[in-house]
């Protein structure tokens, strides 16, 4: 990675650290508030209040009865709409940039990457990996339907995000602590295991990849097939195989783009669908030159 690309990568890292710190502070404040202490810097809402997935699980109850399921606040509904709007435009930016639990998985994954080097994130055989990626949709359906029927926030019983940021609370179940532990251990071997296989909110946002307004596009004419984009993708998406990458697992992290990893300018980037890249043709020549240099001039 060049110095320039490292700086670009820092923008996402800064956003991730900001949201991780924000949620940690909210969690600490909630704890302080329960102890009768003064919250620091900001208020002390519960974690449920600042989680957009709360809006998803309560949407049926909200639309049919005008009420929220237990522990869910109006802010969750508002956050849900804002995140869905953001996702409609840019894809699951929430997963790749904002979600503090995804960030924690990613940070733990950095340790795994140091230990296993190139073998990291390649442990799960494709035959198992592919069907497992649809498990999160089943979980999404189960969570939404069961919450609508029971009126209770059942998901928090095994939600590792809630367990991590509420670890001091008696509300955290043993099951969720177990899921948290397994996820963190799993992150040492597989990048973002919770996001890939189990996260119901990620499943919902992932669907937006099929019709998001800003698409991830690969210019086949200038692509040199170096596969750098495939290797860097935390979700193991075969980026180099498509012209428009609409895989349901994409988290819009932008790691694969020519801003960060792809070595050829204007070859792999986010752009508004249907608009031809004006530089495509002019870049064709430079792309061909790079291809020639890599293949020794043979075509």
């Amino acid at each position, binding site marked *: 990675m060049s110095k320039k690309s490292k700086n670009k990568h820092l923008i996402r890292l800064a956003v991730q650290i900001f949201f991780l710190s924000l949620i940690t502070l909210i969690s600490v404040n909630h704890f302080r508030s329960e102890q009768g202490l003064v919250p620091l810097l900001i208020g002390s809402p519960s974690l449920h209040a600042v989680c957009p997935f709360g809006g998803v699980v309560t949407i049926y109850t909200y639309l049919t009865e005008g009420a929220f399921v237990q522990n869910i606040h109006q802010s969750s509904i508002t956050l849900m709409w804002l995140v869905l709007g953001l996702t409609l435009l840019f894809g699951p930016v929430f997963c790749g*940039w904002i979600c503090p639990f995804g960030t924690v998985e990613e940070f733990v994954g950095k340790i795994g990457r140091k230990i296993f080097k190139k073998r990291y994130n390649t442990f799960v055989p494709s035959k198992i990996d592919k069907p497992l990626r649809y498990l999160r949709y089943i979980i999404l359906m189960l969570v939404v339907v069961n919450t609508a029927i029971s009126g209770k926030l059942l998901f928090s019983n095994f939600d590792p995000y809630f367990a991590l940021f509420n670890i001091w609370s008696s509300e955290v179940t043993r099951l969720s602590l177990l899921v948290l532990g397994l996820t963190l251990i799993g992150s040492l071997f597989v990048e973002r295991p919770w996001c890939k296989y189990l996260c119901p909110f990620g499943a919902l946002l992932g669907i937006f990849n099929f019709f998001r307004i800003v698409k991830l596009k690969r210019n086949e004419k200038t692509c040199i097939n170096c596969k750098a984009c495939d290797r860097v993708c935390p979700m193991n998406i075969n980026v180099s195989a498509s012209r428009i990458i609409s895989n349901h697992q994409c988290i819009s992290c932008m790691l694969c783009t020519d801003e960060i990893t792809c070595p050829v300018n204007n070859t792999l980037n986010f752009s508004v669908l249907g608009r031809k890249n004006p530089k495509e043709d002019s870049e064709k020549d430079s792309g061909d030159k790079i291809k020639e240099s890599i293949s020794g001039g043979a075509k």
Partner: protein
Amino acid sequence: MKIKSIHILLAITIIIGGGILLASELDLYNTTRIKSPRKTVEGVYDISGTRGSHTLEEIEKYYKLPPSSVIEAFGLRPDTDPKYFQLKDMKEIFAPVELEEEEYIVETDTVKVFTSLYLKIPYVSDETFYLPEKTVNYLIENDKLTGEEKEYWQGHTFKLEYLDSKYLTASEFFKVVVEEAEEFKVTGSTTIQELLDYGITEEKFEEVTGFKVPDKKSGSVRDFVIDKGVEFGEVKDKFIE
């Protein structure tokens, strides 16, 4: 148009940050109070929708359950303020008991079962199979149990144990207040009346909180100051300085 990281950063700031600010202005971003329980198809409030954050006053509003019945049935302090006492506070008052090798806690679901029996509103609990003996006796005395219910609940009772002596009931209340006065500390449950009984003058109260002593002195100091927008942590130690 090519989208870069900086554009995503701007989008997050504008859509999420701006959206929250706008929603706050429109009163659509409420992170604190959640109100009414859901209704059943019959149009009455569903007991399963009762939350730990509901106060006795809210329970009365939704279900028409008199707060005095909960106070008496669970042996709460007679000066318990229905406006501020939340159902989840039960967990802080009663000690867990071990029944059939499982820890049993008096909490929100216990009150849900009590409400269901008292008001004859259907509610099936998957947690509460035992009730405090005092609660069952209260229901029997007030003729709220059918023969079958009476038979079941009389065989599924346990004795209430208080975590803290200050929650003891009417008969021992006076004694407890005297005992507390020896080592006084303002906590989240200290009432304004207790503060005055300890010897804090109304002038001192006004000096510390910035507000006059309210007419209703049975409410907690914590709830009073929070209601007035003052942080409890900032004032609680100033009373005894």
